[in-house]
Protein backbone atom coordinates (compact mmCIF):
# COMPACT_ATOMS: atom_id res chain seq x y z
CA UNK A 1 0.00 0.00 0.00
CA UNK A 2 1.25 3.46 -0.92
CA UNK A 3 0.61 6.43 1.33
CA UNK A 4 1.53 9.89 0.10
CA UNK A 5 1.67 12.98 2.23
CA UNK A 6 1.55 16.22 0.23
CA UNK A 7 3.00 19.14 2.15
CA UNK A 8 4.45 22.62 1.81
CA UNK A 9 7.99 23.14 3.07
CA UNK A 10 8.04 24.68 6.52
CA UNK A 11 4.62 23.25 7.42
CA UNK A 12 4.79 22.91 11.19
CA UNK A 13 1.57 20.91 11.34
CA UNK A 14 3.15 18.31 9.04
CA UNK A 15 6.41 18.21 10.99
CA UNK A 16 4.54 17.59 14.24
CA UNK A 17 2.19 14.94 12.91
CA UNK A 18 4.01 13.03 10.22
CA UNK A 19 6.12 10.82 12.48
CA UNK A 20 3.11 9.57 14.44
CA UNK A 21 1.11 9.07 11.23
CA UNK A 22 3.96 7.15 9.64
CA UNK A 23 4.37 5.01 12.76
CA UNK A 24 0.62 4.28 12.72
CA UNK A 25 0.80 3.20 9.09
CA UNK A 26 3.92 1.09 9.64
CA UNK A 27 2.26 -0.80 12.47
CA UNK A 28 -0.77 -1.69 10.35
CA UNK A 29 0.52 -2.08 6.79
CA UNK A 30 3.21 -4.69 6.10
CA UNK A 31 3.97 -3.62 2.52
CA UNK A 32 3.89 0.12 3.20
CA UNK A 33 5.39 2.63 0.78
CA UNK A 34 5.45 5.97 2.57
CA UNK A 35 6.18 9.08 0.46
CA UNK A 36 6.41 12.70 1.51
CA UNK A 37 5.91 15.00 -1.46
CA UNK A 38 6.62 18.70 -1.67
CA UNK A 39 3.49 19.82 -3.54
CA UNK A 40 5.38 22.50 -5.41
CA UNK A 41 7.92 20.02 -6.78
CA UNK A 42 5.20 17.48 -7.60
CA UNK A 43 2.54 19.92 -8.75
CA UNK A 44 1.31 17.95 -11.77
CA UNK A 45 0.99 14.78 -9.75
CA UNK A 46 -0.75 16.64 -6.91
CA UNK A 47 -3.29 18.02 -9.42
CA UNK A 48 -3.75 14.55 -10.91
CA UNK A 49 -4.54 13.15 -7.47
CA UNK A 50 -6.95 16.04 -6.83
CA UNK A 51 -5.08 17.85 -4.07
CA UNK A 52 -6.55 21.34 -3.60
CA UNK A 53 -5.56 22.10 -0.02
CA UNK A 54 -2.39 21.38 1.93
CA UNK A 55 -1.36 19.28 3.69
CA UNK A 56 -3.25 16.35 2.18
CA UNK A 57 -2.93 12.58 2.11
CA UNK A 58 -3.52 10.07 -0.67
CA UNK A 59 -3.70 6.29 -0.35
CA UNK A 60 -2.85 4.26 -3.43
CA UNK A 61 -3.13 7.37 -5.60
CA UNK A 62 -6.57 8.35 -4.28
CA UNK A 63 -7.04 11.55 -2.27
CA UNK A 64 -8.42 10.38 1.06
CA UNK A 65 -7.68 13.22 3.48
CA UNK A 66 -7.80 16.86 2.31
CA UNK A 67 -6.21 17.86 5.61
CA UNK A 68 -3.95 15.88 7.88
CA UNK A 69 -5.80 13.07 9.65
CA UNK A 70 -5.26 12.23 13.27
CA UNK A 71 -3.50 8.90 13.86
CA UNK A 72 -6.89 7.51 14.92
CA UNK A 73 -8.56 8.59 11.66
CA UNK A 74 -5.71 7.10 9.66
CA UNK A 75 -5.86 3.86 11.63
CA UNK A 76 -9.60 3.58 10.95
CA UNK A 77 -9.10 4.19 7.22
CA UNK A 78 -6.23 1.73 6.93
CA UNK A 79 -8.06 -0.95 8.90
CA UNK A 80 -11.03 -0.59 6.56
CA UNK A 81 -8.80 -0.94 3.51
CA UNK A 82 -6.80 -3.87 4.87
CA UNK A 83 -10.10 -5.61 5.65
CA UNK A 84 -11.15 -5.29 2.01
CA UNK A 85 -7.95 -6.85 0.63
Amino acid at each position, binding site marked *: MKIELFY*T*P*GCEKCAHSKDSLKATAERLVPDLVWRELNA*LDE*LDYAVEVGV*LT*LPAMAINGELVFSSLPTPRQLRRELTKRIGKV
Partner: protein
Amino acid sequence: MTLTIGKIASALKVSTDTLRYYEREGLIGPATKSRGGYRLYDHDAVRRVRFIKQAQHCGFTLTEIRALLDLRASDAACCRDVRRVALEKKLQLEAKIKAMRVMSKTLDRLIATCSDEGRRLDDCPILAAFDR
Protein backbone atom coordinates in the same frame (compact mmCIF):
# COMPACT_ATOMS: atom_id res chain seq x y z
CA MET B 1 -4.19 62.52 3.18
CA THR B 2 -7.67 61.56 2.01
CA LEU B 3 -9.14 61.08 -1.43
CA THR B 4 -12.69 61.21 -2.67
CA ILE B 5 -14.28 58.00 -3.89
CA GLY B 6 -14.29 59.37 -7.45
CA LYS B 7 -10.56 60.09 -7.40
CA ILE B 8 -9.71 56.64 -6.10
CA ALA B 9 -12.06 55.02 -8.59
CA SER B 10 -10.46 56.75 -11.56
CA ALA B 11 -6.89 56.34 -10.29
CA LEU B 12 -7.31 52.60 -9.68
CA LYS B 13 -9.76 51.94 -12.53
CA VAL B 14 -12.54 50.53 -10.39
CA SER B 15 -16.12 51.72 -10.19
CA THR B 16 -17.45 53.70 -7.28
CA ASP B 17 -20.02 50.93 -6.75
CA THR B 18 -17.16 48.48 -6.34
CA LEU B 19 -15.51 50.68 -3.72
CA ARG B 20 -18.78 50.99 -1.81
CA TYR B 21 -19.18 47.21 -2.01
CA TYR B 22 -15.65 46.68 -0.66
CA GLU B 23 -16.46 49.02 2.18
CA ARG B 24 -19.75 47.24 2.98
CA GLU B 25 -17.89 43.92 2.98
CA GLY B 26 -15.23 45.30 5.32
CA LEU B 27 -12.44 44.88 2.77
CA ILE B 28 -11.53 48.55 3.06
CA GLY B 29 -11.94 50.82 6.01
CA PRO B 30 -15.08 52.91 6.32
CA ALA B 31 -14.95 56.23 4.56
CA THR B 32 -15.26 59.50 6.35
CA LYS B 33 -17.43 62.18 4.82
CA SER B 34 -16.38 65.57 3.56
CA ARG B 35 -18.40 68.64 4.46
CA GLY B 36 -20.11 68.29 1.14
CA GLY B 37 -21.08 64.68 1.96
CA TYR B 38 -18.51 62.99 -0.32
CA ARG B 39 -16.91 59.77 0.84
CA LEU B 40 -13.24 60.20 1.69
CA TYR B 41 -10.78 57.33 1.90
CA ASP B 42 -7.31 57.29 3.42
CA HIS B 43 -4.05 55.92 2.03
CA ASP B 44 -4.62 52.51 3.63
CA ALA B 45 -7.84 52.09 1.66
CA VAL B 46 -5.99 52.89 -1.57
CA ARG B 47 -3.33 50.32 -0.69
CA ARG B 48 -5.96 47.70 0.07
CA VAL B 49 -7.81 48.29 -3.19
CA ARG B 50 -4.52 47.84 -5.08
CA PHE B 51 -3.92 44.64 -3.12
CA ILE B 52 -7.42 43.35 -3.95
CA LYS B 53 -6.96 44.05 -7.66
CA GLN B 54 -3.57 42.35 -7.84
CA ALA B 55 -4.80 39.33 -5.91
CA GLN B 56 -7.83 39.07 -8.21
CA HIS B 57 -5.44 38.94 -11.17
CA CYS B 58 -3.96 35.82 -9.56
CA GLY B 59 -7.39 34.22 -9.31
CA PHE B 60 -8.20 34.87 -5.67
CA THR B 61 -11.85 35.42 -4.77
CA LEU B 62 -12.89 38.25 -2.47
CA THR B 63 -13.37 35.76 0.38
CA GLU B 64 -9.85 34.46 -0.14
CA ILE B 65 -8.50 38.00 -0.42
CA ARG B 66 -10.11 38.86 2.88
CA ALA B 67 -8.25 35.91 4.42
CA LEU B 68 -5.00 37.16 2.85
CA LEU B 69 -5.59 40.65 4.22
CA ASP B 70 -6.24 39.14 7.65
CA LEU B 71 -3.03 37.14 7.33
CA ARG B 72 -1.13 40.30 6.44
CA ALA B 73 -2.45 41.98 9.57
CA SER B 74 -1.80 38.99 11.82
CA ASP B 75 1.19 39.06 14.15
CA ALA B 76 1.13 35.27 14.40
CA ALA B 77 1.36 34.65 10.63
CA CYS B 78 4.50 34.54 8.56
CA CYS B 79 5.49 34.30 4.93
CA ARG B 80 5.14 30.52 4.73
CA ASP B 81 1.43 30.84 5.64
CA VAL B 82 0.95 33.11 2.64
CA ARG B 83 3.03 30.77 0.49
CA ARG B 84 0.78 27.84 1.41
CA VAL B 85 -2.31 29.87 0.42
CA ALA B 86 -0.65 30.80 -2.88
CA LEU B 87 0.29 27.18 -3.54
CA GLU B 88 -3.26 26.01 -2.80
CA LYS B 89 -4.59 28.61 -5.24
CA LYS B 90 -2.16 27.36 -7.86
CA LEU B 91 -3.35 23.79 -7.29
CA GLN B 92 -6.95 24.93 -7.75
CA LEU B 93 -6.10 26.84 -10.93
CA GLU B 94 -4.18 23.90 -12.37
CA ALA B 95 -7.11 21.60 -11.57
CA LYS B 96 -9.45 23.98 -13.42
CA ILE B 97 -7.08 24.16 -16.38
CA LYS B 98 -6.97 20.36 -16.46
CA ALA B 99 -10.78 20.15 -16.39
CA MET B 100 -11.06 22.74 -19.14
CA ARG B 101 -8.59 20.85 -21.32
CA VAL B 102 -10.84 17.79 -21.00
CA MET B 103 -13.86 19.93 -21.98
CA SER B 104 -11.99 21.31 -24.95
CA LYS B 105 -11.01 17.82 -26.13
CA THR B 106 -14.61 16.66 -25.75
CA LEU B 107 -15.70 19.57 -27.93
CA ASP B 108 -13.02 18.64 -30.48
CA ARG B 109 -14.53 15.17 -30.72
CA LEU B 110 -18.07 16.54 -31.04
CA ILE B 111 -17.08 19.05 -33.69
CA ALA B 112 -15.39 16.24 -35.63
CA THR B 113 -18.61 14.21 -35.60
CA CYS B 114 -20.43 16.98 -37.47
CA SER B 115 -19.02 16.98 -40.96
CA ASP B 116 -22.19 17.99 -42.78
CA GLU B 117 -22.95 21.62 -41.98
CA GLY B 118 -26.17 21.56 -44.01
CA ARG B 119 -27.72 18.71 -42.03
CA ARG B 120 -31.13 19.25 -40.41
CA LEU B 121 -31.13 20.13 -36.71
CA ASP B 122 -32.92 16.87 -35.92
CA ASP B 123 -29.89 15.03 -37.25
CA CYS B 124 -27.30 17.21 -35.52
CA PRO B 125 -24.83 14.82 -33.84
CA ILE B 126 -23.66 17.47 -31.36
CA LEU B 127 -27.18 18.13 -30.05
CA ALA B 128 -27.82 14.38 -30.06
CA ALA B 129 -24.69 13.81 -27.96
CA PHE B 130 -25.98 16.22 -25.32
CA ASP B 131 -29.34 14.41 -25.30
CA ARG B 132 -27.78 11.08 -24.42
